Structures are given as structure tokens and as C-alpha cells.
């Protein structure tokens, strides 16, 4: 009898084990590509019989003589480039009595816990991975200590409040690298104290914004509790005291107005806490030379530090990345003269920005029961909105325009409305600490226009106008040390009081000098595209809309930032300011020179008209929102629009996703599928987008194949047998490097592949500093070089499409994502992104800037509805994308550079999802700007409006984790089954919908075209195939699966035999 129990029990046990192994197998195979990335395994490989890898090759400096990869050279190049990013991008804001640079050999004390644990990356998003060089090492050492300096990061579980801290990788087993640090002696007592304090004041190299913020700076009492005699060390290390103040940025969370822990002596998260002020006071006790480093990707409130005579120097260092502290050390020690300009305006009180009147959590008063659409797989809150009542006056455009009107005595500019730091009426000097584009150097420069600017207007065959102004600026180094400087050209269009809103000053373009020796000069040529000084008028042509270039006096100026340039313009206009009128230029523009509506035809020849009327709340419910106007700063100062009530049915329908109804009975006979003409994808290398071969290729496909390709946009992208493509892992994050370890390459067949046995194999390429640091360099060449290097990385890790960089503009300082986006200025953002993407494409990497568009806050980012005027949308946020996507700088008569990738925002534009906005995705992006490429949604976004998304101009969904198409992941009964209209998506859903089929064809065309321009083509020929490889996790689950099945069968038989024997025994 006992035996039956044993065999029966073992049968049950093996049944359980078998079920577990089957579950494990399903989960592992369904997520194989992602698991490979994180485990460093390779479960499949693209193989070919031919000799490939002849289209894109890394540069010789990262290859060995035999063409194999040189990991040491690659990492060294990354270190050098990150260092350059930091010293070009850091901005010297104050340097009284030339306290900087500090001589080599100086004895310095670092204060503030962030001096010991600075923020190098974001908590999520553009996180810094792997070993780093921290500030102490950069100032003191000459060799890395990668084995003991692994970047860590904090992760908050918002359900439990639990904060988890961990390293970004287990260990560094590779090489160490030599570097030339600043050569300082750094006070070891304070380092030791801060190291001990980290146990209670948790800090990591990667952190994000917090909705209730605490900088977690120890008090002087906390310091004394560790070592009561710490001040004794100041005597020896008192040549200078360097204080680090940090504010983090990251995905998912914002700072919120008033969102600070009580009792810290601060009212806002971007102000300084009492303990931070005490650390600065301590620095004054320590040394007569006090230097403050601002370690942030957003504006920090430092007005009193600027005015404090005992603070000698302030250096903004951004979020510098894994090795960027070397660049910071270069500036401190004078190896390099600083040359950056601020990416955003730094104000005394960030709450003084008009945008801050409407930032945070806002829900329609009648959302419950009215907004019935669900939050989707990403889990967003429904019925959330923000009213961008500041109009076009974002960032410096607001402060500088109001300043201009104050001086001019117009528009009630000097009223108290919006005055936060001013005592009484609004006063620029009180409200603004450092202006946009501002930055100091260790030397001085003289600027002068070299001759008259040259204006050119050319009419193109397609009806568009190319109109440029070329400025030659002679820059002379009038100081004692070598240095470089940005050359920023700003403009002002004529404004009529009460007319179309116009900023008093706006950046039009820029470049940067080379290093200029003392006494020497360089002439920098900056070409301005005049379309960017035109204004968008929604009322033009009886409400049709379009750009206008009002006839009148236009002013152009060079300056050290927007305020300096504006002052120069004002001096030219004879206004009462102290500035150099010689640095401004006036040009009367008449209709004889260029038509007033010349820029209402895009460079592609498309007539520009209103495309996103639903962006404006007043379109649905007129008169309910007042946008800020310079005609009356006081009367239009934004109120807080909370509890807005939905009354327009059209508005409600939009919010409920009623955009598109899939048709069932169209005549689709003219749409060709399954033609079988023999053309294959590998034939398409170098084929122009408009070549009819693309139509022939796509005609080969089945509708189902095309639908798969237009649905599953990555990281794995499905193959299509009819055109000879294979399913493979193609896309990854992020803007600061490709998120795949060297030894986890998806392209191990590449001649330069870094073998798993390479000592540097676990190096992770996400190492660069955050985007504002890049933007602040005002150096297009640096941005190109960063893109090109990440392009080289992509060849090493086998990723042809990068979900990055971030390209939204900063609406305000509280956006937690500001670190991933470049600037508040669209031109600075657009130029930086364009250079990055074109550089990346040199090595076949498709950069897909994100998040198109209007991700103006992380709070409720999953589907929040930002309402604004179309003028605001086009002149600020969209202009950044336009500049990058038109990429006019790289166009030739025979070649249209353009961009090849894009990621769409979670957010809506007004009441319509960006993913489903034909105005945004097709009419503006494709038709006006000529975008031809891969345009993917953000992760799992808008699965419930499938038909609307795939007919809008979006090409596919981000479906991270979903792979194994046609097997594990199918359209039938898959994740798209629940649609807002109750329909179910499947592989034949578009069988009777001609518009959808044509949209699918267009999407496939764009995706395949992007792929054909990428380094994926290194791996394609007629014999390309994917083979499954034995990896430890696959072998393990299969062994358990087969073993448990066999044992279960054996034990079941033994049980039956035992039962029979028992029966016979009876």
C-alpha cells in the first residue's frame, strides 16, 4: 500500500514541476531578447552564407589592425568624449576676482554630501551605468578605480513607498584607465565623514525628481556627530572650499509646487535647504575661496548666491555622466577655459514662470462618468489635463519680452502680476538670476559683425522659399588665456501692440569658435533660416492659418545670451539701456523682398494651414481660457485653470478615443498584396524612398505580414518571409548610449564583436551626461560627435534603432524629465538633436527622438491633455522637431537628409492622442517636414485605438517584451483585443478598409526604408536567417521540462502497477 502513495505523490510532484517548467519556458521564450540583454546571453543569431559587414564599419581608432574590436580603445574614446561634453557644456556663472582656475597642487575641501556622491545620471531613463569617475577622483587621482566605483541608483516603489538602492552592475572585472586629473589634494576628513553619513542620508549617482522633496543634506550637527574635530582639517585644506548642490531629474516624476518635506527651511524643491546653506556657510569658514558647483539638469534658485560677495565662483556642471567629472576638473584647474551657455533661464523663483500657474494635477470636474475611456495597459489616470495658458511665453521668451515691455512702458509689464522675487512691481533684475545662453570664460572676447549680413531669398520649384541671413562674426580673444566661445544670433520681429503675439527676442542659430589664442581672432559664420523668425497666425486667411513674416523692421543681434542680445537690440533702437548697439543689426523687410506669407509653404512644397485646432480648449468651449498676451501682462496673467468642466460633445468624444471607425466594406481590389515579384529587402540598400521598387517590394507581402510589421515596433521587430526579412531585436534606449552591454551584442557575427571573454565585456555604453549639458555646449560639432560615437557603439552591440535622444522643450523647471530634454529653446534643442541624429546615421544608427510631442510634465504623463494655441505648439515645441527633422543644413541639391526615426508621446495634443493625430503625424510631420521613417508609439500606448493610431501616420507600436511573432505573440486574441468601440483586432480586421490598408502600406514603407538606411543592412543578403542557439536558460528549462514529463509518466505507470499488485494481493 505504501508504494501506491509514493508513486502517486511523485506523479503529482512531477506534474507540478512539469507545469512550472512549461510556464518558465513560455515566459523565457516570449521575452528571450530582453532576457538576453540583461543576462548577456545570445539565444538567437542572424546568420548568412555571404561575406557581409561592408556597409558600416566602426572607425579605425576603435579597431585592432586586423579589424577586430578594441574594447579598451572604445572605452577610452568614451571617456574622452564624456570629458569633452562636460568641459564644453559646463557653464561658469560667476568668477569674482578670477578665483578660478585653481592652481594644480591646491589643497581643497569638498563640502556638501553631494560632493561625495554627485548626481551623474537619472533614476530612470538616461541612467548612468557601470563604473564611474567621481569628483574626488577627478580632482585628486590619475587612474580609475572602476572596480570600486560602480554607479548606483535608487528606485522607489510608489505602492509601498519602499526605496531600493542597488548598483547598476554587479562588478567591474575589466581594465583600469589612466587620466590626468586636476592634481589637487582633497581633504580626506570630510570624505570620510560623508562616506559614513551616506548610511543615513541615502544618495546615489542616479536619482530622479521627487514630488515631496528632501535634498537629504546633513546638518552641521550631523557632521560633528561623526567627527567633532572636522574643522581642524580646514587649516591644511583651505586653499579653496568647493560646495556641491544637486537636484536630480528622471523619468516618471516631477517636482511639484510646494512639494518639499516640512522643516527643511525651503518652500520649493529647487530652492536651497537650510542645511545646504549651512554647508555654504561652512565653506566660508574653511576658506576665503568659495566655489559652488550646481549639479542639476534644471534651473536651481541661486539668486542670493549670485549676490553673496563671499561666494567667489559658481559653476553649473549639469548631470555630467560617468566620466564627466574629468571635464569639471579640467575647468576648475584651468586646463580648459569654460565655454558653455545656459540651456534654460535661471530665475530667482521658478514659480514666477507663467507656466507654473498650471502645472501638476488637474482633472475635469465632471470626468467621472464623462470620460469613460480606460487608462490603458500603462495604467494612466483618465480625465487629466493641463492648461498651457502662458501661450508662447515659455522660458526666457517670457522674462525677456516682459523686460522689453517694462523698459518700453507698454502692456502693463511693470505691474505686480507675476512678481515673485520683486518687491512690489515686476522687476527683471529681481526675477532673473542668469539669462538663457549666458556663460563666462577665463578669458574675454570681443565680437563684431564682419561686414554686412547677407540676405538671400530663393524660390524653389515646389513653391517653397529658402530665405537665409548669413552673419559673419569676428571673435577676438582679448584676454590672457586661450578659450572658445559660442556665437549666438538672436532676432526680433516687429510687434504691433494687440496684434499677433511675438517674443521680443529669440535664438535663431549659433555656432562655436575653435580655441582662440590670446590676441587672435576667428570669423564664425552663422546662417539663419528666416522661417524661424516668422510667426504662426491661426487666423490668417479667414481662419485657414499659416506663417506670416510681417513687413517691418527686423533686428538681429549677437550676445552672451538672450538678455545681452536683447539689450543690444534695444540699444540699436535707442532705448535707455547700457549695451552695444554695434552688435545689433536692423533690416527692413518688405513684401518686395519676401512675401508676407512666404513661409506658409513648407520646404516640401506643402501649404501650411491649421492642423491641430483641437489643441486649443477655446476651439470647443470658446472664451473659457485666456492666454497670456504682452498687450496686457497684468490682465492676462494666467489664472490656475482647475476643475474645468467638459460640455462640448466633440471634446468628450475625443477624450473617449472616438477618432476612427474601422470599415468593413470598402473596395480594396486595387490594393496589391502577395504579388510574388521576387524582390527582397536586401535589394533595397541605397534605394531612394520615392523609388517605385519600394512599392514592388511591399506588394509582395501579405496583408497579415504588413500588419504585424506595422504593429510590433520593437524591441523585436517581426520578419516577413515574402520579402526575406527575419524577426530580430532592433531597438533600444537611450539618449546617453545604447542600453546593451558589449558582451550582450545582438550581432555577434560582426568582425568587431567584443567576445564574452573580453575583460571589458561587461562595459555598458550608457555613460554620457544628460541632455542639457550637451545643449549648453552650444557646439554643433560636439553634438555630432556624440551621435557618431553612439552610432559606433550601436555597431558593437548590434542595435540599429535608438529610442532617443529626448527632444521636447522645457516648459518649466519642475518637469522631472528635463534632464532628458535639451532646453527651453526650440532652436538650441533642434540643432543639438539634428547634429546627434546625423552623426549617429554615419554609422547606420537610426536615432528616434522622443517624445513627439508635448510631454510637458511627467505627472499624469500617460495621456494627460495639454491645451494650447497652435501658435504656441508650432513656435515652441514643434519648432524643435521641425529644425531637426528638416535638417536643412545637411541637404544638398541631390540629397534630402531628414531624419529616420521618432518616438511619439504618451500625451495628447489638446483632446486628441498624439499617436492618433493626423494633423501631427501626417500633415505636419510627413507632409510639411518630409519625415520618412520609423515612428513608434511609447511603450504599450493607445493599444485601445488601434485603427486610429495606424491610420494617423504612426508606423508601429512600442511593444517591449512582446516577441515570437506568429507564435507566442499574435494579432488574434492578443493585447489589442479590447478597443474603445468594442471591436476586436485580429489579422483580418483591415480586410475591408482601404484607408487602413493603404496606411499599413505607408507604415511598412517608412519602417523598411529606415531599416534599409541602418547598419542592419550589414547583416542582410539572400541567405540571411535566424538560428536558435543553446543558452543556459533554454537548456535548463527544456531539461527540466523533458525530465519531469518522463518521470511523471514513469511514476504514473509505477502507481498503476502498484495498484494492480495491491488488487491482485487482495
Amino acid at each position, binding site marked *: 500500500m505504501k508504494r501506491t502513495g509514493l508513486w502517486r505523490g511523485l506523479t503529482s510532484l512531477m506534474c507540478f514541476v512539469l507545469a512550472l517548467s512549461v510556464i518558465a519556458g*513560455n515566459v523565457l521564450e516570449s521575452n528571450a531578447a530582453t532576457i538576453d540583454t540583461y543576462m548577456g546571453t545570445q539565444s538567437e543569431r542572424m546568420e548568412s552564407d555571404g561575406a557581409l559587414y561592408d556597409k558600416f564599419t566602426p572607425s579605425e581608432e576603435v579597431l585592432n589592425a586586423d579589424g577586430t574590436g578594441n574594447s579598451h580603445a572604445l572605452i577610452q574614446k568614451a571617456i574622452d568624449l564624456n570629458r569633452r561634453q562636460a568641459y564644453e557644456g559646463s557653464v561658469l556663472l560667476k568668477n569674482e576676482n578670477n578665483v578660478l582656475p585653481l592652481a594644480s597642487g591646491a589643497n581643497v575641501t569638498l563640502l556638501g554630501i553631494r560632493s561625495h556622491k554627485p548626481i551623474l545620471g537619472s533614476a530612470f531613463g538616461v541612467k548612468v551605468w557601470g563604473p564611474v569617475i567621481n569628483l574626488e577622483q577627478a580632482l585628486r587621482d590619475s587612474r580609475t578605480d572602476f572596480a570600486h566605483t560602480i554607479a548606483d541608483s535608487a528606485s522607489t516603489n510608489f505602492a509601498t513607498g519602499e526605496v531600493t538602492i542597488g548598483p547598476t552592475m554587479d562588478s567591474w572585472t575589466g581594465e583600469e584607465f589612466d587620466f590626468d586629473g586636476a592634481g589637487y589634494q582633497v581633504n580626506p576628513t570630510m570624505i570620510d565623514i560623508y562616506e559614513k553619513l551616506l548610511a543615513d542620508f541615502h544618495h546615489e549617482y542616479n536619482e530622479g525628481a521627487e514630488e515631496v522633496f528632501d535634498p537629504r543634506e546633513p546638518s552641521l550637527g550631523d557632521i560633528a556627530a561623526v567627527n567633532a574635530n572636522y574643522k581642524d582639517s580646514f587649516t591644511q585644506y583651505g586653499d579653496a572650499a568647493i560646495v556641491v548642490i544637486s537636484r536630480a531629474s528622471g523619468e516618471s516624476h516631477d517636482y511639484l509646487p510646494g512639494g518639499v518635506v516640512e522643516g527643511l527651511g525651503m518652500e520649493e524643491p529647487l530652492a536651497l535647504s537650510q542645511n545646504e546653506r549651512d554647508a555654504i556657510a561652512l565653506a566660508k569658514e574653511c576658506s576665503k575661496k568659495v566655489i559652488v558647483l550646481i549639479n542639476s539638469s534644471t534651473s536651481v534658485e541661486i539668486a542670493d548666491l549670485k549676490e553673496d560677495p563671499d561666494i567667489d565662483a559658481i559653476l553649473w556642471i549639469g548631470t555630467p555622466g560617468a566620466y564627466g567629472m574629468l571635464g569639471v576638473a579640467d575647468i576648475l584647474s584651468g586646463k580648459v577655459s569654460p565655454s558653455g551657455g545656459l540651456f534654460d533661464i535661471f530665475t530667482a523663483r521658478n514659480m514666477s514662470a507663467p507656466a507654473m500657474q498650471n502645472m501638476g494635477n488637474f482633472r475635469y470636474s465632471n470626468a467621472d462618468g464623462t470620460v469613460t475611456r480606460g487608462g490603458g495597459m500603462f495604467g494612466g489616470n483618465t480625465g487629466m489635463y493641463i492648461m498651457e495658458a502662458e501661450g508662447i511665453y515659455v522660458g526666457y521668451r517670457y522674462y525677456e519680452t516682459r523686460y522689453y515691455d517694462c523698459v518700453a512702458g507698454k502692456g502693463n509689464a511693470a505691474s505686480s502680476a507675476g512678481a515673485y522675487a520683486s518687491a512690489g512691481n515686476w522687476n527683471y533684475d529681481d526675477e532673473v538670476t542668469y539669462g538663457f545662453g549666458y556663460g563666462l570664460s577665463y578669458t574675454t572676447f570681443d565680437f563684431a559683425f564682419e561686414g554686412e549680413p547677407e540676405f538671400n531669398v530663393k524660390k524653389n520649384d515646389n513653391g517653397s522659399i529658402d530665405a537665409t541671413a548669413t552673419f559673419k562674426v569676428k571673435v577676438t580673444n582679448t584676454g590672457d588665456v586661450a578659450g572658445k566661445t559660442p556665437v549666438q544670433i538672436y532676432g526680433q520681429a516687429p510687434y504691433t501692440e494687440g496684434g499677433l503675439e511675438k517674443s521680443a527676442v529669440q535664438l535663431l542659430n549659433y555656432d562655436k569658435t575653435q580655441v582662440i589664442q590670446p590676441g587672435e581672432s576667428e570669423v564664425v559664420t552663422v546662417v539663419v533660416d528666416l522661417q524661424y523668425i516668422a510667426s504662426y497666425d491661426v487666423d490668417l486667411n479667414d481662419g485657414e492659418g499659416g506663417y506670416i513674416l510681417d513687413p517691418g523692421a527686423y533686428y538681429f543681434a549677437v550676445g552672451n545670451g538672450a538678455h545681452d542680445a536683447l539689450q543690444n537690440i534695444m540699444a540699436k533702437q535707442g532705448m535707455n539701456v547700457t549695451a552695444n548697439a554695434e552688435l545689433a543689426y536692423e533690416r527692413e523687410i518688405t513684401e518686395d523682398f519676401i512675401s508676407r506669407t512666404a513661409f506658409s509653404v513648407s520646404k516640401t512644397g506643402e501649404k501650411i494651414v491649421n492642423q491641430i485646432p483641437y489643441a486649443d480648449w477655446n476651439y470647443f468651449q470658446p472664451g473659457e481660457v485666456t492666454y497670456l498676451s504682452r498687450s496686457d501682462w497684468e490682465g492676462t496673467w494666467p489664472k490656475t485653470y482647475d476643475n474645468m468642466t467638459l460640455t462640448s460633445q466633440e471634446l468628450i468624444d475625443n477624450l473617449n478615443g472616438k477618432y476612427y471607425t474601422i470599415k468593413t466594406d470598402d473596395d480594396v481590389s486595387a490594393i496589391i498584396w502577395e504579388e510574388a515579384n521576387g524582390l527582397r529587402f536586401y535589394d533595397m540598400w541605397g534605394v531612394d524612398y520615392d523609388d517605385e521598387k519600394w512599392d514592388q517590394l511591399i506588394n509582395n507581402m501579405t496583408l497579415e505580414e504588413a500588419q504585424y510589421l506595422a504593429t510590433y515596433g520593437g524591441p523585436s521587430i517581426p520578419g516577413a518571409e515574402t520579402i526575406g526579412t527575419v524577426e530580430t531585436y532592433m531597438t533600444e534606449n537611450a539618449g546617453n548610449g545604447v542600453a546593451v552591454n558589449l558582451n550582450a551584442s545582438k550581432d555577434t557575427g560582426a568582425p568587431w564583436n567584443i567576445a564574452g571573454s573580453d575583460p571589458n565585456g561587461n562595459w555598458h555604453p550608457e555613460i554620457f551626461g544628460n541632455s542639457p549639458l550637451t545643449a549648453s555646449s552650444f557646439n554643433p560639432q560636439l553634438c555630432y560627435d556624440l551621435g557618431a560615437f553612439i552610432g559606433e557603439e550601436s555597431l558593437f552591440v548590434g542595435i540599429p534603432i535608438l529610442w532617443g535622444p529626448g527632444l521636447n522643450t522645457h516648459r518649466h523647471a519642475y518637469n522631472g524629465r528635463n534632464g532628458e530634454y535639451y532646453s527651453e529653446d526650440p532652436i538650441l534643442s533642434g540643432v543639438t538633436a539634428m547634429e546627434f541624429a546625423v552623426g549617429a546615421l554615419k554609422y547606420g544608427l537610426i536615432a528616434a527622438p522622443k517624445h513627439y510631442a508635448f510631454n510637458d510634465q511627467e505627472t499624469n504623463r500617460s495621456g494627460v491633455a495639454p491645451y494650447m494655441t497652435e501658435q504656441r505648439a508650432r513656435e515652441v515645441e514643434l519648432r524643435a522637431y521641425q529644425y531637426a527633422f528638416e535638417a536643412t543644413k545637411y541637404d544638398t541639391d541631390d540629397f534630402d537628409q531628414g531624419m529616420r526615426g521618432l518616438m511619439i508621446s504618451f500625451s495628447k495634443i489638446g483632446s486628441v492622442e498624439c499617436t492618433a493625430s493626423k494633423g501631427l503625424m501626417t500633415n505636419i510631420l510627413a507632409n510639411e517636414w518630409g519625415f520618412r521613417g520609423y515612428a513608434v508609439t511609447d511603450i504599450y500606448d493607445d493599444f485601445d485605438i488601434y485603427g486610429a493610431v495606424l491610420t494617423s501616420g504612426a508606423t508601429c507600436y512600442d511593444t517591449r517584451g512582446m516577441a515570437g511573432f506568429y507564435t507566442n505573440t499574435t494579432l488574434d486574441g492578443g493585447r489589442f483585443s479590447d478597443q474603445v468601440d468594442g471591436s476586436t483586432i485580429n489579422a483580418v480586421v483591415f480586410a475591408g478598409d482601404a484607408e487602413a490598408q493603404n496606411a499599413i502600406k505607408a507604415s511598412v514603407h517608412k519602417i523598411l526604408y529606415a531599416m534599409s538606411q541602418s547598419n542592419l543592412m550589414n547583416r542582410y543578403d539572400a541567405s540571411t536567417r535566424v538560428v536558435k542557439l543553446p543558452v543556459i536558460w533554454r537548456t535548463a528549462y527544456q531539461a527540466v521540462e523533458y525530465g519531469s514529463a518522463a518521470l511523471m509518466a514513469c511514476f504514473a505507470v509505477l502507481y498503476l502497477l502498484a495498484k494492480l499488485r495491491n488488487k491482485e494481493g487482495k
Partner: protein
Amino acid sequence: MMRKMTVGSVFTLIAAVAGVVGTVAMMLSSNIDKAYAYKTVNTLLLMGICGIILCLIAVWSPTRFGNHDLLSTIGTVGAIGLFMGVVGTMISDRVLMIAGLFSYNSQNMVGWRVFYATVTGIAAFVVGCILLIIASFMKNAKAAK
């Protein structure tokens, strides 16, 4: 001859209760938000109910057919298979959401509620299976005195 229940039978009965808890939690996690509804929820519900019935059969049949009888063995193994089938589907359906909660999407409060309901369901089914395994090694009926 009717036989009395044993400790093993009690374990099996508790497994049936765990199956009920698991099924309820599974249904709950599917109904918190339509974005997180299981695509095959009806099948999962049927599997859960069948598993519970098989557990009950595994409790009853030894009292009728004797210790370690074939029907209770089939019931036990079948219930394990069905419960684990539900668990497998729940995991497959939720793995992306759970990965998001622990990284880029930790503020998804709806997701966390779904997560807790899912974990409760999975835990209940797994506990039920473990009890069934333990019970299957034990006597599940003894002769009435």
C-alpha cells in the same frame, strides 16, 4: 463500505479552498481595469472551477473507492495541472506589467492593485498545488470503525 477522511483528505479539502481563493483573486485582478482583463478569462474561470471540483472528487472518491484510488489520483494530478495552467496564463499575461511596475511605471497605482490581486491568486493556486502534492503522499481514506 464508506471510509473516513484522513489528514490527507483535509489537505486536499484546503487545496480546494485555496483554489476558490485563487479563482476569486484571478477574477478580481481581471476586473480591476479593462486594460488588464485576461483575454481568456472565461477559460481561466472554467479551469479554476474544474480544478476545485477535481479536488472535491479527490476528497470524496477515497471514501467510496478506498485509499489511493485511481479517481482521486486523477483528480489530484488534474487539479494540479489546471491550477498551474491558470497560474501560467496569469504570469504570461502579467509579466510585462509587473516588469514595468518595478522599473519605469512604478506610479501605476491601478497596476499595483492588479499586481497584488494577481500575486494573491498565484500564491493561492501554488499553495493549493503544494497541499495536493503533500496529500497525495499521504493516506486519503481509512476504514470506518
